[in-house]
């Protein structure tokens, strides 16, 4: 256990959760003292936690505006989408070439579980989705690729919460996932890559539409 305060770690987890689940909205001002009261921590661990979150690009500190939750800009979204489409596509191709039997059993178990989750339980659904993307990354058997994907996935988590309540996106997504795993199992890299690219791309398309609609 690091000498980093246990309270800092706990405060970090709690605030990160609040940002990702949009309890703290993009662009919202952050009041250290209010957070300290609300979460029942000292101000020091809160301050330390915010520093770590700034490092994660979830908090921005500006001299003029103070501390606030990072905004989601359409420009940023485009950049993020470009990288993820590229990386996730390549990952799916590699997974189709390299996946072992155990990897495929894991993917199938996840698909199976996702099918059983009711549409309303978005939190559970989202967790399985994350695990499935992780499982595909693991099946590509390149840990650098896995680590990079995890970073970009972290940045995209907030977008999920933005999109989920607004769209009936889930059932189609489950079908896409199933097709994707099937093509990996059939050792068809082209098809796997193709499905993944369109899957990620359409996700960002929806997010883009929603943000445009809100800002326009």
């Amino acid at each position, binding site marked *: 256990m690091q000498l980093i305060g*246990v309270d800092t770690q706990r405060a970090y987890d709690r605030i990160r959760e609040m940002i990702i689940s949009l309890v703290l909205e993009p662009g919202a001002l952050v009041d250290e003292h209010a957070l300290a009261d609300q979460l029942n921590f000292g101000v020091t661990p809160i301050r330390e936690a915010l520093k770590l979150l700034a490092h994660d690009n979830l908090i921005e500190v500006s001299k003029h505006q103070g501390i606030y939750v990072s905004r989601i800009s359409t420009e940023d979204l485009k950049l993020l989408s470009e990288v993820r489409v590229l990386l996730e596509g390549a990952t799916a191709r590699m997974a189709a070439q390299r996946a072992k039997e*155990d990897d495929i*059993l*894991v993917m199938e*178990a996840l698909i199976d579980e996702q099918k059983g989750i009711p549409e309303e339980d978005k939190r559970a659904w989202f967790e399985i989705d994350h695990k499935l993307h992780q499982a595909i990354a693991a099946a590509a058997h390149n840990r650098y690729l896995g680590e990079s994907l995890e970073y970009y996935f972290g940045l995209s988590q907030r977008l999920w919460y933005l999109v989920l309540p607004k769209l009936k996106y889930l059932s189609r997504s489950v079908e896409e996932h199933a097709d994707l795993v099937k093509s990996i199992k059939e050792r068809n890299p082209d098809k796997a890559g193709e499905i993944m690219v369109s899957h990620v791309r359409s996700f960002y398309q929806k997010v883009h539409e929603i943000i445009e609609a809100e800002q326009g």
Partner: protein
Amino acid sequence: MNNSTQSRNLVLGIDTGGTYTDAVLLDYDTHQVLDRHKSLTTKRDFAIGIGNVIDRIHIDDPKEIKMVSVSTTLATNAIAESKGKRVGLFLIGYDPELISSFKMSQQFSTPNYYYFDGGHDLYGAEKKPLDLKSILEKVKQIKHQVDALAVSSYFSPLNPEHENRAYQAISSVCDLPIVLGHQLSTKLGSVERATTAALNASLLSVLREFIIAVRRVMERRKIAAPLMVVRGDGTLMSDEFAVRTPVETIHSGPAASAIGGHFLSGIDNALILDVGGTTTDLALLIDGKVTISEKGAMVSEYKTAVKAADLLSIGLGGDSHIRTNREGDLLIGPERVVPLAYLSAQYPKVKHQLHNLTKISWQKSSPEWLEYWYLIREPESMELADSDRKRKLVEILRVSPRAIPEISKELGIIHVSQIGAEELFRQEIIGKAGFTPTDLMHIQEQYSVWDVEAARYALDAFSHYLLKEPAEVQRLVWELINEIILEAVVSFVTEISLSEELSAPGIGAWFFKNAIYQRHPHLGAALKLAYPVIGLGGPAKMFLDASTRTLHTDLVLPEHYQVANAVGATAGSIMVSEEVLIYPKLSESGLDVIGYFVQSSYDRLEYQELATALEFARRLSHEYVYSAAIRSGAANPEVIINEKMDGIDTYRIFAQAYGKPRLS
């Protein structure tokens, strides 16, 4: 350098026992105890007691504290009271029929165990392919009903491949903590390994919460030092290791006491008797080391593969309840109560009642008048909502403590057992007080921090009921205590349980009784213990004086013997161990040896020649334990490597790195 007080190496030792939490502030280099404090253990949340005790230790400059070390009965208690978390145990390649025919399934320590195909044989070859599909199916089914998972595969110490694959797959589909059998034990006993893995899994969050709580108190007192946890064999591990292997803290309290006894007395060979509030623990010190049980520690009814001090714990301590049975025989323990001297000091009304008790007629007296219930803390409403009697009980106890007959009368019931108050006791909402050896020690002016007069009234009332003189009752109680201690000493040292011998009127009982009482007119018997006894814990002097005389040996009470446990928590060495197995790889036919496997806890490699395999294994285990000890905070670790043959062509290389904590 310019100021000698600035370069002191101070360490803070904490022991959380069944009754008391002790802390000492110690100068590590001079062995000087600078401050010490005792506080009641808070079982519902150990952190409260630890916070209380650290807050009362005087600290000049927190920067001088270079290490904090804790020993704790947390793991042992959690198992004994079934308060560990719910665990799903996955058994790979185990034979269900074999397990059930030997009734070994009760050993697993969890009711949720499942069998799957897979496992390896004695040569590390796959016995059956791993049924990962069924494992994943089961995980999906149970993952919301358990808090942690344990996986143990047949012969996994020789080849952990199936455990590792199961880990990979399970951790990809759920976030529960997962414990693997081969990481905890290299012994081949498959049931013990599974039990150890399941117990470890059940303790993960318990110990984690505990460590976090201690760290919080440290932060509040601005102590920025490494935190160590005592293992069951008395060695130390960093908190980082402890949160992964909580099962290794089983019996760490008694082990710490024994090491503290050695540290404070400087005696290398002795029998250590640690008399606490609830229990008395026995351990043997030989050549300066606590003897370790080779069999693996027992905890409750479970046999584990955990290395721990060889010790015996009996339910007798300063706060053991003294009472009688229906026949009027004197009984003591194993239940622990709050001494009446203490309760009276808090509530003068109790003292007054005890005084009146000495004056009532014999017909009306009953030992139940000496048992009080009292309120420890206000319950949260939910804890009580299930019964009117419990609510009423809390209401009357809120006013003042009540003796048992009063409670029955006020609640209009025949006996207090009708209340069903067990949970209120367990949650430490209400407590029980009674007549104890601690009260006798007050009367005899051996220990008088609380109300001496009240203790005397209690003894008078108890004697009144027994129709005996108080002096006679005192003598009988100490005689009984002496007998219980001697029985434990003889059983522990000889490894022969005396209780059966003593229940029958044979020669064994004759020798034992005559060694104590010298009753026979013509033939005497005597016991002679080869070592001195080191007495530890507050009541040690009173409890052990007579027994050491009977054992014809010296009773040594080192300075600060009352807090030897907390001293011992700091006195152990940091230790890291690793075992590597070398075993033959067989040809397809199984007839020829075509190479050797070297299996460590994280890797399996293949060699053609035995000599190269052994050489590599020695180097690997040396490097591993040395660097892990440095990482854990040891200074100049010393590595000891033991090799032994274990079956045909199979070798075990056991490496241990020991080092004193690096304090700067």
